[in-house]
């Protein structure tokens, strides 16, 4: 009954979203505001309708309505209510619906907030975003419908999945369901998928504005950029959080002691993040200098297509991966939609190419403009390298018939140097002035952070002299951090001397006066801290594996682990747990007792490794229980121990990034909207008084 209501709401939502797309496009084309308003009303209704659908599924998941195939697939008696709710996005059908629901929600926010402001763009903003929504709702309705029932045909080996009753069948209602994939039964389930989806769908709004600007010819002006600026930042931070939470989840659950494995799904998320980051920067060039308008378009089109591509890869299993739960009929539909929207967008861009001319000339090659162009190009190069490595196994199989693997060694050695230069540019870009910069001034600004970073990295590197390559990485981190701190220092100094404020006041006012700039610096700081985590992972990671009997010890670095015994007990969610009791020693002194476990999910016949972790700012000691043997006389167990150096800086960096984004996105009415740069050399010398 409830499920039927959900299905009806879903069907109406599909009709409305198709109608909204057509009506708004027609209204915009023929200048009929009645049509546009009607489209707007239809769009506003899609979200509540989809909400009904989502609630119907959630209700069915919680109450275990096993007449629905989806509930049977992802929910079960043993699962807690919390997990039953998260099962909404735990399987393919539910997650596509969830995606469409978020998308429709964003459209509502845009329509309510921006309706008055961007009248001319609005018809095509609606058309573009509702076309995407209609596509996803259509997928839910026709291909991955979560309201399908199971039907039993006499004599057939398997039940048939269908919405309506096929001939000669009876409704089949199982007693219990399969339940969520055990790897998904984790608290991270509440964070990683929703944030990722918000990031993916969030980028569709700036894309819709870009397309509207192209169609209406408003691409000449930059209004669409100003409107979507904060929007883009919010979508971007959600995608960033999604990436970081995904890493954290992998670290806690997947049991390989790392947080980033260059898996196709991770790459699929990374690519729109890379182009989205490039877009965040290229729009600054347009705002400040009227440059890179074509780039903005290219980047937002890429980000949109890559967001869809990311969803496509995750949901269709086209590239085999630990994440892709099933192969499905989604593939061709996605492929067609991505192809058509991409070609359509590129055609529009080509058509309006002349409206996107740069307004100013470049005064000097030594200027922030140059750095911006280079960093944007690097983002694209990294994106290409990641894309190429991700799809190459497919290409290889198509062309030569040989299946190959493109694993982490490829991604590390190809993107490593590019990321290195990118991060370096991140550090020095603020030292370049807009328009032109004398080399002398640049040297003046650079030498202190440079000298400081040399001292730090030599000292630091000396402690790690067995990994000479790491010194370069540590130098980079130190240099970028000093460059950023120097920017804060200069601003604070200017205020303390000119306004007589104390340093804390000065810092707060400095940030308040120009929150986008200093918020951006905080984000940069977060990024470089994450880079520090990657450096630790690349150079300082240690591992050992061994089998010990109770009472014996395993040694790694200056740590020792004593195995004290095993115990087994039944856990929640239908799992059998075997837990090892360990005592960890550092330099011979006892620091902590740890309990790594192996949870065996009986129904799914799947084990999940839960590590025991001793975590400090410098390193994690990460212990996994791999195997055991219990006899009458003694207990034997095999452990794998990782020392993950600096890994916590990834999470800390994530928090710093969120903090920076909050500052940057904070709206302040006093802020002067126009930040066009008219005079050369003004942005580095006196940041405090630059813009007001």
């Amino acid at each position, binding site marked *: 009954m409830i499920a039927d209501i959900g299905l009806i709401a879903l069907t109406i939502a599909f009709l409305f979203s198709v109608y909204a797309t057509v009506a708004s496009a027609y209204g915009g084309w023929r200048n009929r505001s009645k049509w546009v308003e009607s489209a707007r009303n239809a769009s506003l209704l899609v979200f509540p309708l989809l909400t009904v659908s989502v609630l119907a599924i959630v209700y069915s998941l919680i109450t275990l309505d096993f007449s629905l195939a989806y509930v049977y697939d992802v929910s079960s008696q043993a699962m807690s209510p919390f997990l039953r709710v998260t099962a909404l996005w735990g399987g393919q059908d539910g997650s596509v619906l969830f995606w469409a629901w978020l998308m429709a929600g964003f459209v509502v926010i845009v329509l309510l907030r921006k309706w008055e402001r961007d009248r001319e763009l609005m018809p095509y903003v609606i058309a573009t975003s509702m076309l995407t929504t209609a596509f996803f709702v259509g997928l839910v309705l026709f291909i991955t419908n979560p309201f399908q029932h199971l039907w039993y045909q006499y004599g057939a080996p398997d039940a048939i999945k269908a919405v309506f009753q096929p001939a000669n069948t009876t409704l089949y209602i199982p007693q219990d369901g399969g339940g969520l994939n055990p790897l998904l039964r984790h608290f991270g389930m509440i964070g990683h998928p929703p944030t990722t989806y918000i990031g993916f769908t969030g980028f569709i709004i700036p894309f819709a504005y870009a397309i509207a600007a192209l169609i209406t010819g408003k691409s000449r002006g930059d209004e669409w950029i100003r409107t979507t600026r904060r929007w883009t930042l919010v979508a971007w931070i959600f995608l960033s959080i999604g990436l970081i939470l995904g890493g954290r989840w992998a670290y806690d659950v997947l*049991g390989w002691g790392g947080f980033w494995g260059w898996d*196709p799904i991770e790459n699929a998320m990374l690519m729109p993040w890379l182009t989205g980051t490039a877009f965040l920067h290229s729009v600054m060039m347009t705002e400040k200098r009227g440059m890179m308008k074509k780039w903005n378009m290219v980047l937002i089109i890429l980000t949109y297509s890559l967001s869809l591509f990311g969803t496509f890869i995750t949901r269709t299993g086209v590239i*085999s991966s*630990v994440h892709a739960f099933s192969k499905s009929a989604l593939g061709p539909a996605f492929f067609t939609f991505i192809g058509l929207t991409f070609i359509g967008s590129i055609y529009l861009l080509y058509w309006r190419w002349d409206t996107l001319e740069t307004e*100013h000339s470049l005064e000097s090659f030594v200027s922030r403009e140059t750095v911006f162009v280079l960093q944007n190009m*690097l983002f694209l190069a990294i994106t290409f390298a990641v894309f190429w490595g991700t799809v190459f196994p497919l290409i290889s199989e198509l062309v030569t018939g040989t299946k190959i*693997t493109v694993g982490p060694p*490829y991604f590390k050695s190809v993107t490593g140097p590019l990321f290195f230069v990118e991060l370096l540019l991140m550090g020095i870009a603020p030292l370049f002035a807009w328009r032109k910069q004398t080399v002398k001034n640049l040297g003046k600004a650079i030498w202190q952070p440079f000298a400081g970073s040399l001292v730090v990295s030599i000292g630091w590197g000396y402690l790690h002299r067995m990994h000479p390559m790491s010194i370069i990485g540590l130098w980079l981190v130190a240099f970028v951090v000093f460059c950023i701190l120097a920017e804060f220092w200069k601003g604070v100094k200017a205020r303390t001397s000119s306004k007589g404020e104390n340093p804390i006041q000065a810092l707060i006012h400095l940030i308040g006066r120009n929150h986008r700039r200093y918020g951006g610096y905080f984000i940069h700081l977060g990024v470089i801290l994450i880079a520090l985590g990657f450096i630790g992972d690349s150079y300082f990671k240690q591992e050992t594996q061994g089998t010990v009997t109770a009472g014996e010890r395993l040694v790694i670095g200056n740590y020792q682990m004593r195995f004290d015994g095993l115990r087994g007990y039944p856990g929640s969610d239908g799992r059998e747990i075997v837990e090892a009791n360990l005592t960890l020693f550092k330099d011979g002194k006892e620091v902590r007792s740890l309990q790594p476990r192996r949870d065996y999910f009986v129904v799914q016949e799947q084990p999940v490794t839960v590590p025991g972790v001793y975590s400090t700012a410098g390193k994690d000691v990460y212990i996994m229980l791999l195997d055991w043997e219990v006899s009458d006389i003694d207990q034997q167990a095999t452990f794998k121990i990782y020392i993950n150096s600096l890994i916590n800086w990834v999470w800390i960096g994530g928090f710093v990034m969120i903090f920076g984004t909050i500052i940057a996105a904070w709206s302040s009415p006093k802020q002067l909207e126009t930040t066009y740069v008219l005079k050369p050399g003004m942005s580095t010398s006196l940041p405090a008084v630059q813009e007001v």
Partner: protein
Amino acid sequence: MGHNLKRKLILALLVTLASLYLATLVYAQGTTPGYPTDNDVNQIAKKLYCPVCPNTPLDVCETQACKDWRGQIRDQLSEGWTEQQVIDYFVAQYGERVLAEPQRKGFTSLVWLFPVIAALLGLWISYEILKGWRAKKQVTIPIVENSQISPEVLAKIEEEIRKLN
């Protein structure tokens, strides 16, 4: 003449030392108690991917099949196989897909080549773009089409902005 002899002697000495060193290495490897350890096995398994599971390195894969493959590597090592021999064996047996790092030959070399070409191309494009901007005359494209604001007012606004800066 004497000079030449000296050189030959030094060379001979170096060769002897080098071969002694190598011999020690091999010897050490062969007789270390407990060789091959789990770590020796993982060292190689890390460079291989599970031939049947999707995208899982062999050293962390937890299926029974993978455990057996690790056991096989252990047996091969204890029989004196070198790392390269083990890897070659796995490639011959299960195909190129077991290699974590794609090969640098044949069609597969394209995976390495294209990103380098792309990066260089990107650098060149950046240069061309900047050069284009450099050569560009300063023209201000009117931001608002059919603007209602008169040129005088616009000029005044521009002046105000300039003052603010």
